[in-house]
């Protein structure tokens, strides 16, 4: 009897210790980012968050992440603006409208978008999407709406807009597949109730199904936002990589920089401890942003599953 209890106990404690690896990884991330960026925060304090220059020249060092925070938010914003309507359309089509026969292959195809490595998105963006975006979207917008500062400048294709466009494509599978599950989880009684008072299929979806699942769909969108904020390679390859005051956003058709692309471009080559520390500081800002986004998503999605039980909020 004793032996059985101890054997089980040992196993349980051993795998509980292995499960703690998750905590260890989180602590490792936090430790490296906070201890590594201590130098830059000691030197510049909060100016690091609000400054716009990025200068590693000895004697004139100045580091500020504001342009890259704005660049990250702007590219992710464009991605949501383009990606969310498309993803919702896809989710609605796959969950509510498509004939059974094409539903499975179509959802395979959409989810296949998520399996393509981000560096291949980047390569495709650099040599293919860039020209589509430049010729068919940016130049016409620039010609007719160039008087709006956001559409000014010289469209080259390697800029903030193209980065946002490629992010939009990359977040579609995330948002579409989670939203599709949310929509499928809406009980049929809701639909039947709507049909019984004479609503068309679209009205049922628009007014009943979507509003029933809205917290889950919101969670899906935030998950997509999290992916867009942290995406590195594809953005680095198409955004043009401006540094310093030049990276301050003046037009969508200007070269820009996001936090991940800043780090990817400069971390390894950074010459001295202070500038290395500045890149680590940028990483800390990025981690805080993405964790905040994911905590919101987590709260929204768990709220959804409580709602799913039956009562509407």
């Amino acid at each position, binding site marked *: 009897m004793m032996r059985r209890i101890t054997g089980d106990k040992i196993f349980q404690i051993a795998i509980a210790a292995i499960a703690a690896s998750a*905590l260890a990884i989180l602590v490792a991330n936090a430790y490296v980012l906070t201890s590594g960026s201590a130098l830059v925060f000691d030197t510049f304090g909060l100016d690091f968050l609000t400054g716009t220059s990025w200068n590693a020249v000895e004697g004139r060092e100045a580091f500020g992440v504001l342009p890259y925070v704005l660049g990250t938010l702007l590219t992710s914003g464009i991605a949501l603006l383009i990606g969310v309507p498309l993803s919702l359309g896809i989710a609605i089509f796959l969950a509510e409208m498509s004939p059974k026969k094409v539903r499975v292959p179509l959802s395979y195809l959409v989810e296949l978008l998520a399996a393509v490595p981000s560096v291949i998105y980047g390569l495709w963006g650099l040599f293919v999407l860039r020209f589509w975006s430049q010729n068919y979207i940016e130049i016409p917008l620039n010609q007719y709406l160039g008087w709006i500062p956001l559409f000014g400048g010289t469209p080259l294709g390697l800029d903030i807009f193209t980065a946002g466009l490629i992010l939009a494509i990359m977040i579609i599978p995330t948002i579409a597949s989670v939203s599709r599950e949310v929509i499928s989880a809406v009980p049929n009684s809701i639909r039947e109730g709507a049909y019984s008072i004479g609503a068309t299929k679209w009205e049922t979806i628009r007014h009943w199904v979507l509003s029933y699942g809205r917290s889950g769909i919101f969670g899906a969108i935030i998950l997509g936002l999290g992916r867009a904020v942290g995406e590195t390679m594809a953005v680095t390859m198409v955004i043009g990589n401006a540094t310093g005051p030049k990276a301050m956003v003046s037009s969508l058709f200007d070269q820009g920089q996001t936090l991940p692309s800043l780090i990817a471009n400069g971390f390894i080559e950074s010459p001295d401890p202070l500038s290395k520390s500045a890149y680590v500081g940028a990483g800390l800002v990025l981690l805080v942003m993405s964790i905040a986004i994911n905590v919101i998503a987590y709260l929204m999605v768990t709220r959804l599953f409580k709602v799913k039980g039956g009562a509407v909020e």
Partner: protein
Amino acid sequence: MLNSYRFRRYKNKLFFALCLACVIIAIVPLVSILVETVVRGASQINLHFLTANVLQGGIGPSIQGTLIIIGLTSAIGIPIGIFSGIYLAEYGNNKYASNIRVINNVLTQVPSIIVGMTAFGIIILYVTRTYSPFAGAVALSFMLIPIVARTTEESLKLVPNSVREASLALGVHKWRTTLNVVLPASKSGLVTGTLLGVARIAGETAPLLFTILGSSFFFQGFNAPMDALPLRIFLNSRMNTAEEQAAAWGAALILILIVLALNIIVRVASRGRNFRWTING
């Protein structure tokens, strides 16, 4: 007029068409990516390209490096991930486990570039003191462990309790029940989830930038930089000559074949089961 039945029917059809258009719009980039990669990459592929080192115009070191890094990462990440998942599924009815679950969820969403920085800050600065395949594998394990832990937990939970009870009723210890009965019963889900996780990390680039750095030569030991396909694609895309950029497409074709083959095999083998292509989200 606006509320007339005919108008509402018309609106219904219009939105049906719009939603269908969304699906088509999303599939256009996928088709374009696949077609461009195959067309531009296929002209590169020949025996020399696949076996020569980078200076001689090949991607041999990148293919070798990718296989090494996938092997190392799997060796580190899969056992840790599976045992974490077993704990969460079989012993996970407590506060500690639900905290670990939340942390795992957060970890799957940590930007990959940060994972690379962390591996740099710990493994390279304190352990290997130089760019090393080991550091790259640790970085990728940081991404693989939470994925494997989650899929393990999910697939163990699909095993009906009656199976556990039958084994316990025969007097088998709980730990043996878990390892010899529950684990084999969920084998197919476990293999599926793990392979999808591996397919996902096989294409990751950002964690490798600061850890294995890239190299023109074949594997030179655990204290030297190494190459990998995703890294080679990134580095070559930034080079000046058309030949080097074309080589990036060749490498992209090989990488996409590896990743999609893993995905499609898994998908076809587990047809009917409720697994996603990615673990993302």
